[in-house]
């Protein structure tokens, strides 16, 4: 927030292919959140180049960034970031509102996605009437509903107990199996191991980038 600048990421070269399920790991301060924010167009990079869907991201003003986020990106946050006065259905439908979809259409589509995450029955509940796991499922549905190219998840299980975490990760896995590209940030080894590829960051540089053995995923 301050005016002093800090070099957080120092030269990363990563390519993420369509349909990949990647986790980015690192201790706090390693730059993983900054990377995710840049990928998510929530923050801007100073140097280097970033291609999203083969489109170079540069000279973005807030309006263009907003449109790109709306079209290509879905977000899942550690703290869910649901709008408290909107019910589950309305929260899920919000990205569609900003796509300019008609109300009836977007409610129908939002309900489909709520069904997909197993919360059809909770459509008209407010976030504070849902458990943490349910809130995160709503957030997953919201990330998916706009048909993005990539879903970015920042510590999606950070606020959940291990059982619920496993459920959410299983959901993400299912989504990936349907072809969605997923990038998850986490500092929990067992969460990272549920993905296909782990990129480890330390002090703003990549220390390792390796595939996860399939055996472990299945276990």
């Amino acid at each position, binding site marked *: *927030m301050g005016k002093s600048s800090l070099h957080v990421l120092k030269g990363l070269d990563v390519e993420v292919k369509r349909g990949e399920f990647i986790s980015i790991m690192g201790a706090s301060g390693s730059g993983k959140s900054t990377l995710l924010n840049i990928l998510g167009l929530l923050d801007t990079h100073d140097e280097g180049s970033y291609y999203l869907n083969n489109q170079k991201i540069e000279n973005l003003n807030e*309006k263009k960034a*907003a*449109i790109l986020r709306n079209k290509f990106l879905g977000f899942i*946050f550690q703290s869910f970031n649901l709008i408290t006065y*909107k019910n589950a259905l309305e929260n899920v439908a919000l990205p569609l509102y900003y796509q300019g979809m*008609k109300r009836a259409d977007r409610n129908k589509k939002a309900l489909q996605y709520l069904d997909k995450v197993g919360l059809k029955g909770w459509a008209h509940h407010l976030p504070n009437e849902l458990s943490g796991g349910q809130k995160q499922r709503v957030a997953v549905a919201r990330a998916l509903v706009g048909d993005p190219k990539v879903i970015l998840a920042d510590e999606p299980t950070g606020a959940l107990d291990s059982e619920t975490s496993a459920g959410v990760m299983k959901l993400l896995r299912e989504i990936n199996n349907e072809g969605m590209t997923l990038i998850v940030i986490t500092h929990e080894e067992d969460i990272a191991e549920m993905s296909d590829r782990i990129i480890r960051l330390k002090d703003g540089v990549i220390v390792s980038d390796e595939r996860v053995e399939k055996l472990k995923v299945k276990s």
Partner: protein
Amino acid sequence: MFDLDRWREIFQAISKNKLRTVLTGFTIAFAILLFTLLFGIGNGLKNTFAKEFAGVAQNAIYVWGGKTSKAYKGLQQGRRIQLKNDDYIFLVNEFSDDIQYITARVNKYLQAVYNNEKDRYRIRAGNPDMQFIENLIVDRGRFLSRFDIKRSAKVVVIGRLVEIDLFGNRSAIDKYISLDGFNYKVVGVFSDVGGDDEERFIYMPITTSQSIYGNNDFIDEIDLTYNPKMNNAEALSFGKKIQRKLKVKHDVALRDQNGIGMYNMAEASASVGAVMFGLTIGILIIGLGTLIAGIIGISNIMVFVVKERTKELGIRKALGATPKSIVAMIIQETLLITTIAGYSGLLAGTGLLRLIKPTLEEYYIVNPSVSNSLVIGATITLIIAGLIAGYLPAKRAARIKPIEALNAA
């Protein structure tokens, strides 16, 4: 373009965040309510003042004979000065250029009788000019005429309330009433903005009064209005000039304050003018003060409201809301709340003012009211203030990076 979807979004934000909505609305409504009440009461005070001095012409001068308080030219002190018809003629001749209306006057207090109704009334006997000096409005019939004076006609013009007292709902015109045993024909009925007291008088020709009740040419006072083109200072010195001339004529010492009495409305006019000016300024300050308090209030609330929503705005931005849509949303919400609240405040204010009007009038606050255009103007001012106060932080919130907004508490 009317965008139903956007309005639905706004209605939801408003209705689901009641505290915020109520706070914002209350500020505006209360400011307008106070503005209307204070301004209305202020105007009422002003009306009271204006009314109290509306009974007679603002440029009137009254002179009367008193008792000397100083011995002068071998004459004793304590001598009574009796004005007569020739004093009236003297003033008419002497000051014809400076005088607008003038009348000699005799005051009486007589028993009036019509059928079984009777009461005592104050009588003013004078000439036709008296109508203009006393600001009388002749409702029906006519006022005294030159011809009445000339032939000492036994006619009277009675106040609206005299007519009601004696005649009930019937018209008094062309009826005869008796004043201490002498019958007079009622030729006119008048009303007077000066109020009730002024409408319980009976006017008759001075010549009639002099011949019937005294058989002399005595007069009690001379009333006149000066040329309205005179400014206040000229009017004051004109009054003194008349008084001095009469003192000389009646051998009263010039320094004697009591021999010839004089009252000049210009003295009151000056102080009335000052009080009215003071009241106007006071009302303006009250009105402006309320408005400024309202503007500060709504600005504070808007800053707070936008700050409170920073996170929500961040979420919306992450989901694809453009900065423009964020600003538009806040502006539209503010506009809706403030317009409705402003209008309710306006209705409540004017309604309350009407409700307490009878009570206020017991305390001599006449017709407390505010012009519609003024209240609407005040409401629009507050709405615009709210919009500006909402726009600036909304613009800032729309510009900050979504990640910063999301990190906000």
